[in-house]
C-alpha cells in the first residue's frame, strides 16, 4: 500500500505549519538570540527595536507568567535567558510584530552587552572541569580486570564522531491562537505534542487541559523536533496569552540551525582484548558525550550509547562508562539512533584497529563474535538474535567473498583509484529506554455511514506511521482502506502521549489501534450474530461483508454499523497499550528494557580518487531483519533514507563550531547533506525471512532508526580504500571522513 499522504504530497496540497491559513490579526514572532556563547548579560537594550514600525511588543524573561523553564528531563534550561547566556543562539528576547519582516527587522536592532565567561566546546575539557549534566553511568558484564590476562591481543585507541544537523526541510515553528476562557490552541511542528503542551503549561502557569496542541504532519523530524519543538510553541503561546492575539513563528533556516541542537558529538576511548581464535574476551569504553549547555535529552541519549556499546556482538566481559559533558554549545538532542550509532562506531573502530594489529580482515573478528540467541547483553537482557542469520544470508545472497576479491583485483589494476569494502552488522533495541514512556492510546470512531476516524499519539513525519495505523484498522475490520481516515495528533483527543520517537510509534500506537478495533469488532459481531440468528464464533467480517459460517451474507459493513448504532451500542473505543515484560533497574543497570531487537548486516563498497581525495559510494547491499514487513514500500524507503543519512553523517556532513562556540556551518551553503549525485549508485535491501513472533505490530519490526547505522560502514570502507593506496597511512577514527581528511590520509 502506498503512503496515504502521497496524493496530497505530490500535488502540493498537504498542509504543514506554514501552510495553515492565518487568522486575521495574526502577529509574527522572532527571537533575538545570544551572540556570545557564555557570559552574563549586563545590558539588554530594546529601545530602538521597540520603536520600529510594526513592532507590537518585545518580551524578555521577566514577562513570563509561569516558570522560565523548558528542560524536559532536568529543569536546567531557560526559555529566555534571564541573567546568564550559555550558548550562541540562546534566546534572549522575543519580538512580536504585525509582519514577519517587521519582527526580523526589529531583532536586528536589539543590542546586548554581555560580560564574557570562558567558553568550553570540548567534552573532555568539560569533564575535567567537572561540568557534568548527570553523574556518570557504567554498564558492566563479567569482569574486564581479570579478563585481560587471558587476552592474546589487547588494543587501545580513541575515536571521535562529530555532530549532525537534522536538516528537516521544514524548519521548526508554531502558531498559537487564543480560545475562549483563556485556553490556547497551538499548531506545532513537533514530534511530541504532549511535550509542547507540558512546556507551555509550565511557562504560562496554566493547567494542561487549557492547552490544545495539534499536529497534522511534519516536514521531517529525525529527532530534532522531539524535545526542541517545545520552545517555539512556548514562545507563540506566551505572546498569544499576553497579547490575546494569534501569534505565529516559522523559523528562518539560519535561525533554526543556529538556535537548535544537533546529534551529539562524542569523543571516546576504547580497550579491546581478543584471544588467539579472535574471540573478543574483554571490552572497555569510555564515552564523553558533548551535551551542549543544558540536559535536553542528553541523559537518555547517553544511556542508549551504553545500551548499544557492543553492537551485535557478544562480549563476556564489558565495562562501559559514559559522561554527559556540559559545554557552551546549543543543547544537543535526539537524532535518529539516539546515541546508539555513537556507541556502535567505537566498537567497530576497536575491531578495525584490532584487525589491523593482528593482520586479519575486520570481518573475521566481526563474524567470530556475533550474538547468538540466549547471549546476554551488558544490561542483562537475553538476545533473541538474528545476527548470525543476517550475516550468513548477506554472504550467501550477495557473494561477499566474490565482492571482496573484485575489490582487490580492481585495486591491483588501478594505481590512482582504490576501492574499499566493509561490512556493518547492526543490532538495535526497540522501546523507549525510559520504560514508562512505552505506552500509547488510540481513539477509534466508526460513524454511522461506515466511515472510520482514528486518532492516536503518533505523529506523521514521513515515516508512514499513519499508513501503517490505517492498515491495522483496515485489516482488523476487513474493510476498504478508503473508508478510514487518520486524524491529526491532538492533545485534546489523545492525552499524555509519548513523543513519536525510538522507532516505536507504529508498534505502540498500532497495537493500541488494533485493541480498539478488535473491541469494536466484537460488538459488531455480537449484533451480526443476533441479526443472523447464529453464534458470535461463526461470524466473520470479510472484505466489507458479514460472513456467517464461512458463507458471505447480504449484510454489508455499513448496514451492520447502522444496526449496531440503532441498538444503542457504542461504535467508538479508546484503547490503551503497553508492551508486556519491560523493566529496568538503573541502580544495578540491569533489566529487560527492549521489547525486541532489530538486526541486519550491510556490505558497503566505495571508490576513492587518490589524486583528489574525492570519493563515491558504489553500493550498499543489505540483509535487514524487518520481521514480516506490513508495508514493503514504506520499509524499504526507511532503509534507503536511513542509510543515506548515516552515510552523510560519516562522510560530508560536518558541523563546525569555532573556539568561541559560534556555528560556522550555519546554512545549507556551508553544511552539506547528500544530494542525488552523492548517494550510493546502488542500494539493495533484502529482508531476512523469518516468521518468529515478536512484540512488533503484526510482526512487522520497527524500521525507523536501525538502517541509519548501516551508514557507519561507509567510514570503514573509505578507510580501507585509503589504506589500499597508502598502507602506511596513520589514520585515526575521526568521523566524518571528509574528502579533505581522505586526501591527508593519501599523502
Amino acid at each position: 500500500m502506498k503512503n496515504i499522504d502521497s496524493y496530497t504530497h505530490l500535488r502540493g496540497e498537504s498542509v504543514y505549519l506554514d501552510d495553515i491559513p492565518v487568522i486575521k490579526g495574526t502577529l509574527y514572532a522572532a527571537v533575538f538570540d545570544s551572540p556570545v556563547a557564555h557570559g552574563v548579560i549586563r545590558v539588554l537594550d530594546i529601545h530602538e527595536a521597540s520603536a520600529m514600525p510594526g513592532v507590537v511588543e518585545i518580551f524578555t524573561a521577566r514577562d513570563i507568567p509561569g516558570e522560565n523553564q523548558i528542560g524536559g528531563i532536568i529543569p536546567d534550561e531557560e526559555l529566555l535567558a534571564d541573567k546568564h547566556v550559555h550558548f550562541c543562539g540562546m534566546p534572549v528576547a522575543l519580538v512580536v510584530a504585525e509582519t514577519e519582516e517587521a519582527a526580523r527587522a526589529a531583532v536586528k536592532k536589539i543590542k546586548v552587552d554581555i560580560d564574557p565567561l570562558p567558553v568550553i566546546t570540548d567534552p573532555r575539557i568539560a569533564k575535567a572541569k567537572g561540568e557534568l549534566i548527570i553523574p556518570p553511568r557504567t554498564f558492566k558484564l563479567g569482569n574486564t580486570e581479570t579478563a585481560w590476562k587471558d587476552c592474546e591481543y589487547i588494543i587501545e585507541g580513541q575515536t571521535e564522531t562529530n555532530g549532525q544537523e537534522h536538516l528537516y526541510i521544514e524548519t521548526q515553528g508554531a502558531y498559537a491562537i487564543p480560545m475562549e476562557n483563556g485556553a490556547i490552541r497551538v499548531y506545532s511542528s513537533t514530534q511530541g505534542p504532549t511535550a509542547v503542551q507540558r512546556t507551555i503549561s509550565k511557562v504560562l502557569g496554566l493547567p494542561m487541559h487549557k492547552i490544545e496542541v495539534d499536529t497534522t504532519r511534519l516536514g521531517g523530524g529525525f529527532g530534532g523536533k522531539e524535545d526542541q519543538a517545545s520552545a517555539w510553541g512556548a514562545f507563540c503561546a506566551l505572546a498569544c496569552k499576553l497579547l490575546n492575539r494569534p501569534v505565529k513563528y516559522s523559523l528562518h533556516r539560519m535561525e533554526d540551525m543556529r538556535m537548535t541542537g544537533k546529534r551529539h558529538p562524542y569523543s571516546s576511548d576504547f580497550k579491546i582484548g581478543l584471544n588467539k581464535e579472535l574471540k573478543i574476551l574483554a571490552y572497555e569504553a569510555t564515552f564523553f558525550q558533548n551535551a551542549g549547555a543544558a540536559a535536553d535529552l542528553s541523559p537518555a541519549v547517553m544511556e542508549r550509547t551504553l545500551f548499544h556499546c557492543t553492537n551485535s556482538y557478544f562480549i563476556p566481559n564489558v565495562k562501559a562508562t559514559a559522561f554527559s559533558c556540559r559545554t557552551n554549545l546549543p543543547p544537543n538532542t535526539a537524532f535518529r539512533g539516539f546515541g546508539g550509532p555513537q556507541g556502535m562506531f567505537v566498537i567497530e573502530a576497536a575491531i578495525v584497529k584490532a584487525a589491523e594489529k593482528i593482520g586479519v580482515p575486520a570481518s573475521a573478528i566481526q563474524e567470530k563474535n556475533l550474538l547468538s540467541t540466549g547471549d546476554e547483553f551488558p544490561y542483562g537482557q537475553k538476545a533473541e538474535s538474528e545476527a548470525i542469520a543476517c550475516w550468513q544470508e548477506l554472504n550467501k545472497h550477495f557473494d561477499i567473498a566474490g565482492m571482496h576479491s573484485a575489490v582487490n583485483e580492481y585495486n591491483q589494476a588501478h594505481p590512482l583509484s582504490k576501492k574499499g569494502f566493509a561490512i556493518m552488522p547492526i543490532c538495535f533495541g526497540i522501546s523507549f529506554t525510559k520504560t514508562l514512556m512505552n505506552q500509547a492510546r488510540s481513539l477509534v470512531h466508526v460513524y454511522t455511514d461506515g466511515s472510520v476516524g482514528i486518532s492516536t499519539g503518533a505523529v506523521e513525519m514521513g515515516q508512514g506511521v499513519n499508513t501503517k495505523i490505517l492498515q491495522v484498522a483496515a485489516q482488523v475490520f476487513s474493510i476498504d482502506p478508503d473508508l478510514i481516515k487518520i486524524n491529526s495528533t491532538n492533545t485534546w483527543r489523545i492525552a499524555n502521549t509519548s513523543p513519536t520517537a525510538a522507532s516505536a510509534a507504529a508498534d505502540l500506537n498500532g497495537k493500541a489501534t488494533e485493541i480498539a478495533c478488535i473491541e469494536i469488532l466484537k460488538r459488531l459481531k455480537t449484533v451480526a450474530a443476533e441479526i443472523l440468528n447464529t453464534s458470535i464464533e461463526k461470524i466473520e467480517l470479510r472484505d466489507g461483508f458479514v460472513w456467517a459460517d464461512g458463507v458471505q451474507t447480504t449484510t454489508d459493513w455499513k448496514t451492520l454499523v447502522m444496526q449496531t448504532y440503532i441498538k444503542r451500542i457504542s461504535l467508538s473505543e479508546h484503547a490503551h497499550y503497553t508492551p508486556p515484560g519491560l523493566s529496568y533497574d538503573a541502580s544495578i543497570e540491569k533489566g529487560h528494557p527492549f521489547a525486541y531487537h532489530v538486526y541486519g548486516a550491510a556490505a558497503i563498497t566505495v571508490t576513492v580518487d587518490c589524486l583528489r581525495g574525492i570519493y563515491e559510494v558504489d553500493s550498499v547491499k543489505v540483509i535487514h531483519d524487518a520481521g514480516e514487513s506490513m508495508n514493503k514500500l514504506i520499509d524499504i524507503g526507511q532503509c534507503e533514507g536511513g542509510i543515506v543519512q548515516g552515510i552523510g553523517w560519516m562522510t560530508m556532513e560536518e558541523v563546525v563550531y569555532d573556539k568561541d562556540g559560534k556555528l560556522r556551518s550555519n546554512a545549507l551553503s556551508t553544511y552539506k547533506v547528500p544530494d542525488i549525485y552523492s548517494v550510493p549508485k546502488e542500494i539493495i535491501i533484502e529482508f531476512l525471512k523469518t516468521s518468529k513472533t515478536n512484540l512488533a505490530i503484526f510482526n512487522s519490526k520497527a524500521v525507523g532508526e536501525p538502517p541509519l547505522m548501516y551508514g557507519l560502514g561507509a567510514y570503514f570502507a573509505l578507510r580501507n580504500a585509503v589504506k589500499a593506496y597508502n598502507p602506511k597511512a596513520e589514520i585515526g577514527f575521526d568521523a566524518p571522513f571528509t574528502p579533505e581528511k581522505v586526501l591527508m590520509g593519501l599523502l
Partner: protein
Amino acid sequence: MIRFILNNTPIATNQPPGMVLLDFIRYHRQLTGTKIGCREGDCGACTVLVGEWNDGKLLYKSMTSCLLPIGNAEGKHIVTVEGVNGTGLTPVQEAMAGEGATQCGFCTPGFVVSLTGFCLENQKPTMENAVAAIDGNICRCTGYKSIERAAGRLVTLLKDRKKTETGIEFCVRHKILPDYFLGIPERMSLLQESEKSKIKALSAAQTKKPRLLAGGTDLYVQQHDEMTNANIKFLLDEPGHDEIHIDGNECVLGPAVTVTDLAKSGVFSELFTFFPEYIKLVSSTPIRNMATIAGNFINASPIGDFTIFFLALDAKLKLKDGEHERLVPLRKLYKGYKILDKTPEEQITEIRFELHGTRTCFHFEKISKRRNLDIASVNSACNITSDKGIIGDAAISAGGVGPIPLYLEKNICLVNR
C-alpha cells in the same frame, strides 16, 4: 505594475519588484505548494518553472523562487505545482507515488516541478538528463533511490515523444500538464507585446543610484531583506544581452549570459570538450538557469567557479557607466577581498576572450566537500597553448587560496617546455 502569467492566471501586481517570487506566490496568492526550505537556492523546495520566448520557442527552465525577484518574472509564465496539477495524479506524480518517492512530502512539490520541467524540455530522454533535472532538489528522507526509480519511469514515457510535437503538446497529450498549457504560447505572445515598452519603463524609471541586479543568485542570498524594497535596475532581460558569438578570433558573451546559456551554446561545447563535465560541478540546474557569468565576476568570491575559469582564458570585460566605456582584463579586476576596480555606476556590457584554435588545451578542476551543488574548497583552471609539443603560453588560475580569485603570474616554469 508587473505582469506575468502565474499558472493559468494573468497577474498584474503593484508589489515591489524586488519581492521574491516565493513570497509572492505563497503569501499573496496563497499557493502554498511551493515550500520554503532555505531561502538561499540550496534545497530546491521552492522550485518553479519559468517559461519565456527564446528564438521563437517558448522554453521552460526550473528556477528557485526564493532568489527570483518578481521583477525578473515580468512577461514570463511561472508554473508552480498547482499549475501542474490535473485531475488525479499526473504521470510524474504517479511515478513518484508508485515508487514511494515521497516521505515527509516537504521537498516533493519541488521534485514534481523539476521533473515536469524535464518532460517539457527537448532533451534526450536519458537517465542522466533526468537526474540532472533534479540535481538542485534536496530530499532528507528518501535517500533518492526511489526518486531515481520514478525518474526512470519518466525516461521510458518520454521515449514516446514525437519529433513533430512541442514539449507542451507532448505533455498535454500525456496529461503531464493540464490542457490550458496549449493556450499559453499565444497568451505569452500577447503579454510580451504589451510588456515590451513597460520593461524598458521599469528600468528607465530608476532614480540615480539603483542596485544592479542580474540573476540575483548571490545578492538574494546575502541581502534578501534589503532587496525587497530596494530600487533595482533589472539587467537580465535586456534584449540581446544573453548572446554568445564569435567575433573574429574572439568569443564574445553578453552581460546577461547565464551558466545554462553557456552550457547550451554550441560555441562553448566546441571550444571545451569537457564543458558538460565542468558544468555539472557548478551549482545546480535551477541556479545555473538564473546565475550569470558577469554576476559571478562582480560577486568577487575568491572561489567563484567561472571567475577562475575565465581568468585562465584571460577574459576582458567591457565596463560602461553610461558615458564612458573601458576594457578591463579580468586579471586586473580584483584589488582585494571583494574590492573591484570598478565604480558603482559601471556595469559589464561585454565579456570577451581570445581563441587560440586547436593549439590550446584547457582544464578545470574543482574540489568540494560534496561533489556537486557545493562551494569549491579549491578550484583551478589552466589554459595551455602549444606548438609542436612545446608550450608557448600557460595560464593558471586558482580559487580558495587567497582573498581574491587568483591568477598565477609566475608560471614561466611551464613555458617553452
